[in-house]
């Protein structure tokens, strides 16, 4: 359905070029352009940070743009006197522990809640309270946590951070696993019962393996949330015995000067898990974010 020779009569560009197929092509091309622009806007701060982390201070503050890469900032981070390696270890340990424990507790709880009969008070109470916990501004818990942690000697320990992160991640893990378990057919448990399995065996040997995708999705999200968490770590730790990487990065901002180079280097390191997970676990993350939202 092409119309030729009608440009002069003021028809729209798309009507002139004609076919639906061409219109779709232009639509797609325009969409790509905008999306590429958006992608660049997203990427530029990261690339800028990378450049800062590799440039000597004179380059960072210079007028023009030069690229004289130097590993000095990174070497400083891992050299003597730097607390970054300790913070990195803390972040990894705390995030992994919190993730594994939230998955273990959350999955088991979701199975128990979703596949067994309870009085309505119990399910509404627990699930409702989980919503409250998720909605709560974290600041509300900082005060009591700080006080209780100082009283009990748990202040500035990895243990207390793991506990707090488990609480923070449990709601999402439970929502995701609940949705998944409720979608599984009853025959699975019935077959297990017929085979003489106990509920624990059914859970561990049938349910858990089957729910691997949901576990992966909630695990990825739990890890990311734990890794990037800042307020609790800032409030509940003060030395490298428990301090995490994000808090350490903030420490590069001193009263009258900001050590841009080392800060950018530490920031680039902090970005790596997120980057890797975005590249390789994108489906899981999206599924986690949308299920978590939709199912409520």
């Amino acid at each position, binding site marked *: 359905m092409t119309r030729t020779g009608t440009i002069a009569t003021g028809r729209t560009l798309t009507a002139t070029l004609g076919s639906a197929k061409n219109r779709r092509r232009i639509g797609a091309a325009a969409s790509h352009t905008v999306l590429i622009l958006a992608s660049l806007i997203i990427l530029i701060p990261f690339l*800028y940070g990378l450049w800062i982390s590799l440039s000597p201070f004179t380059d960072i503050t210079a007028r023009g743009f030069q690229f004289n890469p130097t590993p000095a900032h990174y070497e400083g981070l891992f050299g003597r006197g730097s607390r970054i390696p300790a913070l990195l270890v803390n972040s990894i340990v705390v995030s992994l522990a919190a993730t594994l424990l939230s998955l273990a507790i959350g999955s088991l709880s979701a199975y128990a809640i979703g596949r067994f009969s309870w009085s309505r008070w119990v399910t509404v109470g627990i699930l409702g309270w989980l919503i409250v916990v998720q909605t*709560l501004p974290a600041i509300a*818990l900082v005060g009591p946590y700080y*006080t209780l942690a*100082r009283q009990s000697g748990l202040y500035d320990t990895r243990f207390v951070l793991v506990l707090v992160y488990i609480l923070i991640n449990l709601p999402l893990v439970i929502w995701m696993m609940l949705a998944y378990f409720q979608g599984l057919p009853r025959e699975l448990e019935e077959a297990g*019962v017929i085979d003489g399995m106990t509920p624990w065996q059914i*859970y561990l040997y049938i349910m858990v393996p089957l729910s691997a995708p949901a576990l992966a999705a909630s695990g990825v999200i739990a890890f990311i949330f734990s890794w990037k968490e800042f307020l609790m770590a800032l409030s509940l730790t003060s030395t490298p015995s428990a301090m995490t990487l994000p808090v350490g990065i903030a420490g590069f901002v001193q009263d009258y000067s900001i050590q841009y180079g080392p800060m950018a280097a530490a920031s680039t390191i902090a970005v790596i*898990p997120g980057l890797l997970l975005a590249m390789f676990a994108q489906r899981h993350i999206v599924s986690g*974010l949308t299920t978590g939202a939709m199912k409520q």
Partner: protein
Amino acid sequence: MSAAIGYGRRFKVVAIVPLVLIIGALSIYPLIELLVMSLGDVAVRFGERQWAWRGLANYQRMFADAGYWVAVRNTLVYVISSMGAEFVIGLSLALLTTKIRRGAAVYRTILLIPLLVPPIAVATSWRLMYNPNFGLFNRVFRMLSMSPQYWLSQPESALPAVIAVSIWYWTAYSFILLLAGLQNIPGELYESADIDGAGAIQRFFYITLPLLKPAIAVTILFRSVNAFKVFDIVYALTFGGPGLSTEVINTYVYKVFIIHQRLGYGASLAITAILIVGVVSIGYTKLFGVERGLR
């Protein structure tokens, strides 16, 4: 109901115990503690908590505390602007994404990245970009013969500058939720609309928008609740300054708790913050009929 009545009775109770313990110890108990703290003067000395009854004195002080209410106002401005912009941009990007055949996954991956990194980690870059002397933005401004701005160091521009970073960071959240909603709209509806000769604008307002309502409601609700919790981005960029221009609820309460160590007073501020967020959430839910829309 499983195979037999009473099946798994012990299992289900035992299975729930860890969850109940954690919820009890880490959320119910601390919140009660928070309430108690707000009714007194609290200090922790030598590992012991000292509490002296003050009744509602903390709350009275709160009403006279101009700083807190500036923080509340800033937070509301932040929530509304950030969420509004993210919604519009996210929806546009989502709509565009449905128009392309390939590459959607790549764009989604890239847009997702900020969400997965600690906000402090992007603060260096943004602080430098905003730097008046050698920052990216002012370099561009000078090239275009526009006068360089003081972005983060000026009260008037500080909050918008922080909001801009927040939009950059959080747009992917709305984008993903809205894209999922769009992808749930059956293609047949659009095809029959085409056959009926509907234009793009009609398609948008009569098919897309109505069917997207649940996703829109969820996106707005979730992102708003989330936005009230802002702390990391503000801390990383300005920590509330200059003056009080970027002070938000969480940074203010944090300062009261941790820096000024006024635990009782901070608790009353925190309780008020909970009430504010609670009222807003309930208001939203009623407004959008979220529960009805989703069932």
